[in-house]
């Protein structure tokens, strides 16, 4: 019992082959799009690698890159087959390869779907990775003399400036960390010594934040020290002040940014998957039609000049 039987005349077959040829070229372009999306995601993740704890985050962009490359290869081969299908003689060459090829494309489109779904699942891992990564980065903010951590101050500063955020959840995260290195603290001063003693672990904690937390849109010059002390600044109330520092936490800012990217990529990959599935179905149709017509052409040549009708194609009487 045939699945979705359709009658095909020779002209319809030719048209189908032509349409498939065009579709193949479009598929190659979509393969290139998949590949470049994978590269883009890989670059974006690598850019912020300092702020992420290593999890299995590289698997998603790697999969997209691999799928994109395979898409190009498969569709290029498919295009070649299509081109030869028009000529029933050349079709013989590809006869044996056709069925495994179609099975391959079926599995390939399945992997495209898996890739799309992985895009969405990656976000959960990303959040966890970012929380831990940002916490560590802030802890090592002051260690600009330690090799392996000396770049973290610049990374965090540029992150806070670019994403307009402060701290992990909010600016108060900076109050719990010593972000001023000991080599810039005057240990002979009483105030410094008092502060160090008042802390259990001997850390120099202040209610101040780095300059990169300052909000550019604030109407007054930035207040970054003694933030919770209203009397230290004229006409200042930290409970109601909203424009002085960036209010958002960097984890939320980065998560929003990556969520946007992942949603866009996921949607694009889903659309490509739908396109590929329809493409595979039409290729399967083409294969059966070409085979059937090859048989009927043979019987037509052998038999007398009567119109031959077959289950799959109609020959025109010349």
């Amino acid at each position, binding site marked *: 019992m045939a699945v979705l039987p359709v009658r095909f005349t020779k002209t319809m077959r030719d048209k189908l082959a032509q349409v498939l040829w065009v579709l193949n070229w479009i598929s190659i372009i979509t393969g290139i799009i998949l590949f470049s999306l994978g590269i883009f995601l890989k670059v974006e993740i690598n850019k912020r690698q300092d702020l992420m704890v290593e999890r299995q985050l590289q698997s998603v962009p790697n999969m997209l890159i691999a799928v994109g490359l395979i898409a190009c290869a498969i569709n290029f081969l498919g295009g070649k087959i299509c081109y030869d299908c028009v000529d029933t003689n050349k079709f013989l060459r590809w006869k044996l390869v056709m069925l495994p090829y179609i099975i391959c494309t079926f599995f390939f489109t399945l992997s495209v779907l898996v890739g799309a779904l992985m895009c969405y699942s990656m976000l959960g891992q990303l959040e966890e990775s970012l929380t831990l990564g940002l916490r560590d980065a802030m802890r090592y903010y002051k260690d600009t003399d330690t090799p392996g951590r000396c770049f973290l101050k610049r990374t965090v500063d540029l992150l806070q400036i670019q994403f307009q955020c402060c701290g992990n959840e909010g600016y108060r995260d900076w109050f719990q960390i010593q972000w001023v290195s000991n080599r810039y603290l*005057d240990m002979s001063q009483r105030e410094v010594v008092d502060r160090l003693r008042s802390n259990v672990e001997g850390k120099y904690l202040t209610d101040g934040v780095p300059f990169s937390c300052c909000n550019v849109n604030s109407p007054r010059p930035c207040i970054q020290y003694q933030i919770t002390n209203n009397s230290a600044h004229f006409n200042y109330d930290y409970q109601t002040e909203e424009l002085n520092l960036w209010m958002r936490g960097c984890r939320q800012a980065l998560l929003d940014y990556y969520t946007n990217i992942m949603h866009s990529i996921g949607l694009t990959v889903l659309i490509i998957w739908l396109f590929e599935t329809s493409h595979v179905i039409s290729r399967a149709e083409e294969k059966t039609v070409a085979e059937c017509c090859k048989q009927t052409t043979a019987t037509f040549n052998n038999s007398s000049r009567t119109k031959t009708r077959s289950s799959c194609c109609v020959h025109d009487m010349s």
Partner: protein
Amino acid sequence: MVLLKLKFPFQKRVRLAQGLWLLSWVAMFSGAITFAMGVFLKTELHRRSEVMHSMDIHIVPNLLMAVGLASVGINICAGKVCQDSLDPSRFPRWKTFLPPFFFLSVFVSSLLLVAMILSFALQPSLEESLKIGLKNGIRFYKDTDTPGRCFQKETIDRLQIEFQCCGNTNYRDWFEVQWVSSRYLDFTSKEVKDRVKSNIDGRYLMDGVPFSCCNPSSPRPCIQNSLLDNAAHYDYEYQTEELNLHKRGCRQALVSYYMGLMNTIGPCVLLFFLLQMSILVSLRYLQTAMEGVLGEENLEIETEGYILEKGVKETLLETKEKIMKLLQFAQVGDASAETPGTESEEKPATA
């Protein structure tokens, strides 16, 4: 004496026409790219227009955009002429159109060179404009409550962060300006009162800079107040400290940025100019070669192509005479339209 004569057998003519048609498509895209570059330059200049005093420099992107658009049209025409030149029945309709077309195209292409020269010549003007604009921006930094100036703080802060610069020439420009608004100064405090009194104009000046001058690459937390006071900070010496604030002045940063943009666009524009001129020269050869074919029975004869029928001087004299005739004709036309009576009186007198 013909200028730069070349022989054109039939095959060469056909190949010239075909090659020129392809080239005209390439030039059309180059014209579109020139237009796009002009748009890009204009948007970049416009983004920083708040710190620029005069708009003189905008003539460069305007010229690029105009020439880009015009050259797209010119190259479409050139392509059509090439197509028609292979068909002698259709070619004659271009006969009267082509000479003014050539003048116009050469003029438009030379505007490209003008744009390039201007981009270098206007650099001092750009620098001056930025100097005044930045000076005003720094002066009105504190006026976030004054309409018309309230955006200056945000503009200057964003500029200093993005271009990694501080002040007009350097960070000391901030010492000469009161950048802390009086509404955030506690006038009951002794320190504030002393500072304001010690200044002739009653301004609150200090050796501090806004946070946007801070350099993220500095190994220590940013020092923005009491910059000239070594004792105010531990292990700090302002004379040798280089990483704390941005060293560059914003004027220098912006001028370098815009000059960099124009130096990148410059060679592209020059290449496009050369391409356009070569198309026009080839088109002229094609036109003159085809004129030899018109009216002949055998279309495959060999003809001659040239740039100018007579020498340069003679062509200029001829053109001048033509223009004078046209002007005179126009004048006579006006005169005869105004006084028909006097002219009819004159005629019997001369006859």
